[in-house]
Structure formats: C-alpha cells, structure tokens
C-alpha cells in the first residue's frame, strides 16, 4: 500500500474552522507529570542530579520574573512592546540547557529563557523592545543570534550555519526556534529541505504554544506539527513543552544526533502561550478563559517545584534565596532599563555598511549640518 493516509475532514472551504475542539491529549514525550511525578520514556532517559534540578528550577523562576518585570516596564511606558514567554519556560529552559557553548542558537523574538541559558544579559534583550536598537547583543559572544521578527527566516539562517559547521568538520550543532504559526512559512519548509539534503546538524525546535496571535494551530495544520518532518526525511517528535526534563532530554538527544552526523530533527514542544501575544494584543477577543485555566494546571514551574519538594531536593532556604535573587534581578532590570539612554541621533547612519557607502556619507554630513543649524539658531 503506497498511500499514506490520514483521516480527512469531511467538510470543505474552511467551514469547520469555527468549531475548535479543546486540545486533546496527544502522544508526547513526558518525563515529569503536571503533578510533579517523574515518569520514564523508553527513548529518552535522563539522569539529573538534585543540583541540576534546582538549577533548572532557578532558571525558570528567574526567567519568569524577568519576563513579568518586562511586562510591567512596558505598562509603565519604559518599553514600547513586550512579547512574554509566560508558560513557555520549560520549553525554553529545557532546550536552552541542552545546548553546548559551541552550539549556535537562532531564536525568534520570544526566546528570553533560551537567551538566559546562553548567558545573554536579559537587560540586553530589552533594547529592541524599548526602541533603542534592533538587536542589542553580539551574537557571537554567546553563540545566540539576534531576535528575528520576520516569521520563519531564521530557520534558513540556522540551516546555512549548520552547513558551515559541517564543512568545518566541527562537532557542534545548531538549533532554530520558531512557532506553530511559523511552520506555515515557505522559508521553514525550505529549511527542512536544505537541512535534509545536506544532512546539516540542525535541530528545529517548534514551540507550539497553540496560538499565532489570534489564530489557533488548526489554521496552520490539520495534523500534529511534529509529523511534518517525516516527509522531508528526518524524524519529528512531540514533547511535553511544559516539562523541562523532557525538553532537556529530547533536545539533548537531538543535538547529539546532529552532532554525530545524523542530520536534522524536528522537535515540537507542545506548550501554551499563557499571556497575550504581545503587550499590544488582547486575547479576550479570540480565546476563552477556560483554555488558559486548563493549561494553568500544567504549569511548568509548579510541577518542578512539586518534585523538588516531594523528593526533598530543595529546602525553604533555597526557595527564599531564589525569591531574593529574583527581586534583585527585577530591580537591576528595572533600574538599568529606566536609565537606558536613547541612541545618539547620528547612529541612524552607523553600521549600514561594513565598508562604507558614498550616499550614506553624504546624508550623514547633510544631517549633521542640518542639526548644527538648529544649534546655531539656538545659540544665536
């Protein structure tokens, strides 16, 4: 039988779209239940020390605190916009901690948790949201590329980078993040094609947070996203995106697989965007509170805390210290952002070209002269 069949929908013309079913319970890799219980998975064993568990917990708590602080700063007018990762901490910390220093990470605009794992100062993430730059860190410092806003583009950059890694004979791997919405972009499909054909050491990490702004995943696909990979000739797996251990284990395995010359892999982290798409968004217009409540019960931080507490891996002092560390982080973020200076106006003309461009030089001069004319006027 050569037909690979999936149950077709019986209606036509998108008529079904209104009747959105609540997300079912898909088959997914899970190592830690919402109740905080460790479970095993035949393909993805993981050994984590209590210290590592505390570390993952700390990462998630600090990330969430930072994220919350950023949302507040936006409300206070210190940022123009903020894209919150609330609810996606496990997907980001688990996958982020799976990568090695020599691996390279290509994020979207929401990977604050991954950035944290890579060692990017969270304050630097805020520059573009404040409007003082379009990318406020050196990508090569932490092998963490700039945030990419145009959906899906970075999947190709990651693939190209991975092709380069393979050419160099290095044993590093590359990881590209994108969302459920992004899976529809032609660029992501082309990245699948290129990575498969060149057997590039790249892992595609799709955070399916159920929504692309106001559109549910059903508007992007009618079968689970992890299945997309198979038709391109590499494996796909769905992981519980709210389970930091599963995300860590699966991503580590995928990166190792890539590293060892076995090519690309797609990970679909099944998670939920607990907040608005960005601070400009109003999700009450398109989704029901009950859905959010359902996912609240699966909170990634809470379940790890339950494990830590049940197993006695962390005591009150740990949680108290972490609380204090969170407060300190929040304060530092707040203070630094509030005093983050506007760029010099002449920066408009900086870094457009590495080797210069006559027109830029001319316009820079004209602009400077124009600005000087006001200064002259004022001083007169």
């Amino acid at each position: 039988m050569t037909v690979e069949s999936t149950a077709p929908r019986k209606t036509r013309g998108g008529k079904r779209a209104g009747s959105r079913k609540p997300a079912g319970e898909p088959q997914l890799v899970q190592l830690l239940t919402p109740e905080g219980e460790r479970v095993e998975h035949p393909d993805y064993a993981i050994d984590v020390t209590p210290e590592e568990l505390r570390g993952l917990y700390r990462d998630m708590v600090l990330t969430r605190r930072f994220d919350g602080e950023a949302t507040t700063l936006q409300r206070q007018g210190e940022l123009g916009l903020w894209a919150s990762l609330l609810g996606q901490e496990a997907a980001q910390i688990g996958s982020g901690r799976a990568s090695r220093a020599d691996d390279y990470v290509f994020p979207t605009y929401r990977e604050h948790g991954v950035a944290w794992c890579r060692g990017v100062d969270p304050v630097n993430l805020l520059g573009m949201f404040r409007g003082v730059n379009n990318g406020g860190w050196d990508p090569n410092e932490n092998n963490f590329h700039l945030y990419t806003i145009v959906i899906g583009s970075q999947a190709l950059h990651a693939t190209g980078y991975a092709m380069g890694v393979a050419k160099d004979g290095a044993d590093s791997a590359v990881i590209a993040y994108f969302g459920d919405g992004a899976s529809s972009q032609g660029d992501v499909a082309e990245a699948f094609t290129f990575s498969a054909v060149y057997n590039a050491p790249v892992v595609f990490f799709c955070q399916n947070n159920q929504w692309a702004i106001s559109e549910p995943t059903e508007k992007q696909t009618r079968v689970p996203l992890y299945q997309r990979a198979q038709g391109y000739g590499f494996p796909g797996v769905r992981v519980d995106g709210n389970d930091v251990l599963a995300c860590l284990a699966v991503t580590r395995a995928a990166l190792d697989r890539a590293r060892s010359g076995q090519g690309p892999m797609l990970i679909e982290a099944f998670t939920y965007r607990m907040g608005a798409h960005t601070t400009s968004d109003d999700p009450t217009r398109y989704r029901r509170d009950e859905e959010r409540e359902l996912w609240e019960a699966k909170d990634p931080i809470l379940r790890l805390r339950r494990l830590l507490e049940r197993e006695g891996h962390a005591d009150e002092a740990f949680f108290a210290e972490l609380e204090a560390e969170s407060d300190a982080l929040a304060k530092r973020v707040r203070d630094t952002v509030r005093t983050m200076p506007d760029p010099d106006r002449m920066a408009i003309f900086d870094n457009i070209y590495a080797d210069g461009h006559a027109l830029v030089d001319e316009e820079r001069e004209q602009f400077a002269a124009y600005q000087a004319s006001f200064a002259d006027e004022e001083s007169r």
Partner: protein
Amino acid sequence: MAIEKLSISKAINASLRTALETDPKVLIMGEDVGKLGGVFRVTDGLQKDFGEDRVIDTPLAESGIVGTAIGLALRGYRPVVEIQFDGFVFPAYDQIVTQLAKMHARALGKVKLPVVIRIPYGGAIGAVEHHSESPEALFAHVAGLKVVSPSNAADAYWMLQQAIQSDDPVIYFEPKRRYHDRAEVDTEAIPGPLHAARVVRQGTDLTLAAYGPMVKTCLEAAAAAEEEGKSLEVLDLRSISPIDFDSIQASVQRTRRLVVVHEAPVFFGSGGEIAARITERCFYHLEAPVLRVGGYHAPYPPSRLEDEYLPGLDRVLDAVDRALAY
C-alpha cells in the same frame, strides 16, 4: 446616514463592509483578520457578520495568501488581502510582481486579477523593526500594479471602494500613523477618479507634493510657512502608480517650485521619478530644482530615533527655504 465623521481605520472598515454587502464575490483574507479584527481592528466585526467563508483567517504565509488570492480571483472572486505590516509583504513579493502583476498581460487580457492588497505602512508609531517601512517604490516600479495611498478618511473609504471595483491589482497603502485621524465621509458622494491628485491647499510660491501620511505634515508646514508670509500649495497625490503628473505640472507651472515629500528613502524613491518627469515637463518654468524630502538610505531606525529619521515639519520647511532661495 450618508455623512459620518469617521477615523481612517473606521472608514476602511466601513468600505470593506460595503464591499462585502454589495458584491458576494468580495472576500477578506489575511492573518488575524477574523475574530481579532486585525491587529489594527480594521476588519473588526466583519467575520462575525459575514462568516468565515468570506472573512478568512489564513495560515501564516504571505506568499500563500497572495498566491491563493490569485487563484480565487481566477475563479471569479475579488479578494481583498491584508498584509499585517509593511515589512511582512516581502515573502509575497514574488507572487505580487511575477504573477499578480503580469498574469493579465500574459493571458493577453483573457483573465482579470481584481485583487486588492492592503498594507498599513509608514512609521511614527513607536514600533519594533519591520513595522514602519514605506516600500511603495518597490511596487510602483512594476508594471501591472496600481499603487495608491489615501491621506484622509473620505479618501480611505472611496479609494478602497474604487480599488475593489477595479479589475486590476491595486496595492492600497494605509497610513497607519493616521488611522485615528477623523474626517467626514460621505458614503453617497460620487468620487473623483482614483488616480487623480487633489490640491488640498492653494498657494502661489511653491508646491508641496505628498501622499498618505505626509499630506498632513505638508499641510502643517504650509500653515507654518504662511505665518512667515510664504504661500505654499499642497498637492495630495493619492496615487503613486500612475502618478497624476498633469496635476503636478499644472501646479508647478503656477508656483514654479516643487518639493516632494515622502517617508520612504529618497534614493530611488517616488521623489526622483517626480523630479525627473516634472523637470522635463516644466524645464523653463522651474526657478529651482525639484527638492526631495524623505527617508535616508538607511534601514528604518529603532523607534527612539524615528523622529529624527522621519521627515517632519522642520525638514519640509528647510527644503522649502532652500527652494525659495534659488
């Protein structure tokens, strides 16, 4: 009621509603245009009233949106496509310039492509990268497309009606920073031609030509100049392809000086086309070279710099002074 005071975004919404009501072939397509009503609420309420079959939330893929809109047009529909922001039109650029623009000619006129592509464009809204660009020149250069941009609510309503009724593909650029500007819209008035410029302020010393968001800036500049005793004529071009050169010429032959203003980068922008053609048409009339005020040859800067980057009152007046100094 035929006359209402509406914001530009509400006028566009009303125009889409009228189109959906009067022509069953009209469809609205785009990302988040349904329940959300678009990120600017321009399509607010339309899916509720006309259903998911006519107001279509699409997958997140701009080439797919325009490509399927072409197919729908071939089937007899009249899709009105929304691109969420200016900077996100480029994944669809191939379908727009290679297919949408050329298919009517390729078919020797046997098929028509009545597709409207609405693009909120321009800056000054404090947004992050890719949300503030003015790419109109990249469409105007391409034969087979028409490119327009209203500057006020009445035009927003009527020019969209006309764009939807046109059998040609029309790129309809919406001045997003002016979405909230309100004006009276007469939904029963008989509009003038879609591609005609309009004198929005008469003057004798110099002509300011602009479209979209810069019309208001030019009107403010003209008001400020008046206080200094300078009489500026302001022309709202309204259409970028075709450009109503006759009207510009007529104005310049009176005022003998022209400054063109747009947000888009000057280099290879509409100002160059206008300057070249008007200089050719009015060589003996011009007392000064046509001057251009617009964006620099730079990526749109982070928002804290956009006031410095964007052409504003002062830069317009500076160019006016320079032109008058000849």
